[in-house]
């Protein structure tokens, strides 16, 4: 079958500050036939999105086409007039962007937006548009499409918005779809549902798809062929099975090894270093600096893409050797402490965001809204790592904020090392403040862009230890060294650091206080997988040397599995299950834990997620009964709505809060 998307020898670049042209894409060929889904993977900055957009004849501002062509259906996209491009884009060739919440018009109802897409890109007569809109929304499996039509984008959840974006892309009956990280930022359960939908759509319609993602788990689920990109080049290409099961390139191997896996109890292996900046790759192989198999030849000669023996093509002189290396190395074992001492105790914590309305305030009435987080009692041992998991909106971060004193609870108590902590941060003693440190999700947001690394590290040192002058500087350098950054980083601004380096600085700032308890709020979710592995490794090392107690919040169960001693599962701000990591992941579990575990994607073409519950998003917890009552696939009946489920304990230290008896939980 002839290729629908046919990119030949394309090179794209921009003019650097020194006037030199810096290439973002280097001589890439890509052909996609109908019915095929090609995955583009690589770290951020590898050029995968640029390549996908080039297929539409679109380049981001400042980029120029240096060489080659991009054809769609035999039409050269870079030679088309504006009108011609407008006709093709969105019609025959549709794009589904990463954050569709931002790409939908906030002031237009969903129905009107879809209607507009139909008007522009469909041959359907106008009087049949309304019916078609409902049909499209049903097609992307949105419940109750008739009511969705009337809603505004902000009234939908992230997953629903993404479905609307997909429906919009399908409106013009496209022959090809370009997907740019379509599930990044969505909950695991939502992501699994969207991927199933995309899989079914391609098979049903025989469309060609280009799927850009850094997530090999998602790629494994939808793609038939994978192209691995590095520094603007294709380094490995082959069927999904070949690339994921026997990658014939050291980079692809490194990427795979850096992904935490659900059945793996060791830490993922970090891929050290970072890719060269555009235009900085030398004469040899771009990956040479980070490669374990590097020889002299790699530094002087650039390898070509050649067929490898395991199928597919690889850009490596030692592809055969690389293939044999697979699966040899084992990651570091997570540090485990077992001391009986309690470090942090949460007792009946309840947190409410709802502010009483003016009328209620005047009448002295409380709100009848159930609190966002309720009845959280966990006690965490010294040196223990507690994983806190749940979907977005489950109250994970809220609990951390309350422990840190940023959000006073409505009820309950926080005790740290036998001392009851005052609720508000302003009332806490300096010692109590130093004891607990918080690391945020996104270092772009948690580091002041106007402060140098030295400024950032000096703040806790001055505040808690009163250091000054040379002592302050040398101590900062020492701390920086502990997160494996050199002293020359001290005078840099956050904007001069990479994402992983920024997060290291944020970690260094937290550890500068010499804390006993470190609260980690999704600390790796804004990072590339390769960088994530390095950060997890660092946290593990710091625990080894400092004996720190961690509370580790994450939506990624595989990450939690790798690091945590104990896991607490939250739904709608209420605990569902708590226990040792192995007990939660392998033993009997709460129906909600089962749903979460089932939705985890593995970078394995044979692993299919099980989709037990709907991916609807609830905005508020139910007033009574089990928090999971509305989505539970194993609902018993009325008892779930009315009675708070009892704690049941299948083993010492393992607790499940469910009405279903332990025997029945075990049976399923």
């Amino acid at each position: 079958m002839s290729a629908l998307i046919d990119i030949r020898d394309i090179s794209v670049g921009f003019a650097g500050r020194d006037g030199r042209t810096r290439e973002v894409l280097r001589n890439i060929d890509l052909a996609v036939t109908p019915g095929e889904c090609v995955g583009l993977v690589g770290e951020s900055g590898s050029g995968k999105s640029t390549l996908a957009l080039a297929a539409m004849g679109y380049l981001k501002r400042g980029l120029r086409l240096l060489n080659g062509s991009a054809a769609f259906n035999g039409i050269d996209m870079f030679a088309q007039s504006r009108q011609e491009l407008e006709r093709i884009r969105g019609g025959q060739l549709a794009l589904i962007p990463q954050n569709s919440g931002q790409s939908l018009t906030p002031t237009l109802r969903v129905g009107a937006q879809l209607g507009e897409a139909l008007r522009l890109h469909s041959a359907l007569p106008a009087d049949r548009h309304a019916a078609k809109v409902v049909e499209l929304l049903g097609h992307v499996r949105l419940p109750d499409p008739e009511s969705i039509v009337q809603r505004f984008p902000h009234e939908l959840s992230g997953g629903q918005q993404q479905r609307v974006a997909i429906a919009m892309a399908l409106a013009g009956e496209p022959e090809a779809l370009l997907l740019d990280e379509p599930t990044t930022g969505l909950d695991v359960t939502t992501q699994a549902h969207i991927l199933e939908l995309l899989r079914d759509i391609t098979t049903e319609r025989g469309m060609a798809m280009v799927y850009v993602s850094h997530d090999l788990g998602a790629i494994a689920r939808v793609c038939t062929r994978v192209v691995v990109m590095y520094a603007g080049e294709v380094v490995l290409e082959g069927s999904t099975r070949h690339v994921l099961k026997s990658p014939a390139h050291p980079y692809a191997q490194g990427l795979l090894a850096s992904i935490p896996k659900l059945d793996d109890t060791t830490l993922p292996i970090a891929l050290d270093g970072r890719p060269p900046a555009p235009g900085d790759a030398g004469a040899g192989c771009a990956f040479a600096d980070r490669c374990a198999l590097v020889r002299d030849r790699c530094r002087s000669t650039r390898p070509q893409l050649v067929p490898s023996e395991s199928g597919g093509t690889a850009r490596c002189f030692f592809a055969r050797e690389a293939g044999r290396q697979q699966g040899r190395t084992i990651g570091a074992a997570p540090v485990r402490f077992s001391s009986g001492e309690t470090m942090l105790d949460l007792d009946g914590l309840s947190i409410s965001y709802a502010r009483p309305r003016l009328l209620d305030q005047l009448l002295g009435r409380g709100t009848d809204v159930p609190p966002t987080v309720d009845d959280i009692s966990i006690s965490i041992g010294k040196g223990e790592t507690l994983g806190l998991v749940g979907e977005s909106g489950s109250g994970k971060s809220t609990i951390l904020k309350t422990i840190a004193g940023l959000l006073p609870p409505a009820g309950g108590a926080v005790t740290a090392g036998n001392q009851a902590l005052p609720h508000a941060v302003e009332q806490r003693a300096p010692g109590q403040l130093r004891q607990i440190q918080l690391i945020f999700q996104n270092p772009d947001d948690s580091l002041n862009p106007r402060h140098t690394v030295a400024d950032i590290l000096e703040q806790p040192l001055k505040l808690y230890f009163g250091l000054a002058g040379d002592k302050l500087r040398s101590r900062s350098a020492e701390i920086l060294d502990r997160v494996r950054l050199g002293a020359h980083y001290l005078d840099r601004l956050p904007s001069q650091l990479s994402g992983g380096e920024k997060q290291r600085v944020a970690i260094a700032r937290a550890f500068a206080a010499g804390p006993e308890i470190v609260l980690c709020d999704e600390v790796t979710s804004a990072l590339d997988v390769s960088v994530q592995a390095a950060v997890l490794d660092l946290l593990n090392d710091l625990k080894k040397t400092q004996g720190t107690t961690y509370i580790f919040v994450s939506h990624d169960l595989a990450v939690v599995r790798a690091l945590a001693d104990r896991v607490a599962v939250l739904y709608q701000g209420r605990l569902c299950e708590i226990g040792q990591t192995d007990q939660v992941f392998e033993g009997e579990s709460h129906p909600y834990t089962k749903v979460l575990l089932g939705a985890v994607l593995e970078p394995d073409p044979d692993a299919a997620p099980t989709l037990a519950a709907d991916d609807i998003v609830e905005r508020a917890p139910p007033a009574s009964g089990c928090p999971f009552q509305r989505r539970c696939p194993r609902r018993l009946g009325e008892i779930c709505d009315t009675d708070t489920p009892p704690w049941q304990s299948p083993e010492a230290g393992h607790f499940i809060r469910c009405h279903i008896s332990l025997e029945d939980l075990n049976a399923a």
Partner: protein
Amino acid sequence: MTEIAATSTENTRLQRALGVLRDVMARPSGAIGLTLVTFHVILAIISPWIVPYDYRAMDSLSMLNGPSGAHWLGTDHLGRDVLTRVLLGGREALLVTGIATPVAVIWGGLLGIFFGLVGGRLDEVLMRVVDAFLSLPWILKMLVLIVTFGTGIEVLIPTLAFFYGIPVIRIARAATHDVVARDFVSAARARGHGRITVIRRELLPNVLDTLMVEGAMRWSWMLLAFSSLSFLGFGVSPPTPDWGLMIADARGFMSFAPWGVLGPVIALSSLIIGINLTADALAKALGIDRAQKAPV
């Protein structure tokens, strides 16, 4: 970790300011704008020493003469040299707005940051007062004050500084809201830093960028307002030369002596365009996208 090649490791405040200046000058809008502004400021300072005539010297024999060797831009209806008066006509405007702009940005900025920090109901109520104030036409409010207190620099500076500080409140408040919601502020609070430290170290550096661009914008608006007041006869009093006043005086003769209007109009608009271009380049150099913000 690999080294970042050739990044400056010096990040002092001066270095940053110089870097921003370089960035402004590297942009066409910044280069043109800053050149225009600098040219006007220098001219305003040295003009008393370089003008060819006395600005008051009337010549009844050469009234409304066209451009000639003796009078490059011709003469006005009293026979005064237009070039002399154009060269001197920006001094008053630049002096008044040059003082009133920083005053406006400082008081408006401080109040805006305060509102932004306080938040809640007090902030809502006070902002509605600000909105109500902004909804009145500016010229009306200003004329009321000037009619009450009289004209002259000592009234004009506080009047302009007062009225032009009010929109700054809005901007400063919005910028504060943006910064306060960011995690580095939460991080500083969680560490236990005092309120003042958090404002001074975390908040101010980030809000100042926005205020600087806003100040440049306010300056150009204020110049326009000052010239409008002069045009209406409430600004500078004759015979002191001023562009607004000159345009008012010469507009009656525009059909047969257009040079009288053209000179001050070009001078005034080149200065305002220069300030706007500079503000534009500054916003881009500082990474603040003004195009997305409301023009209030």
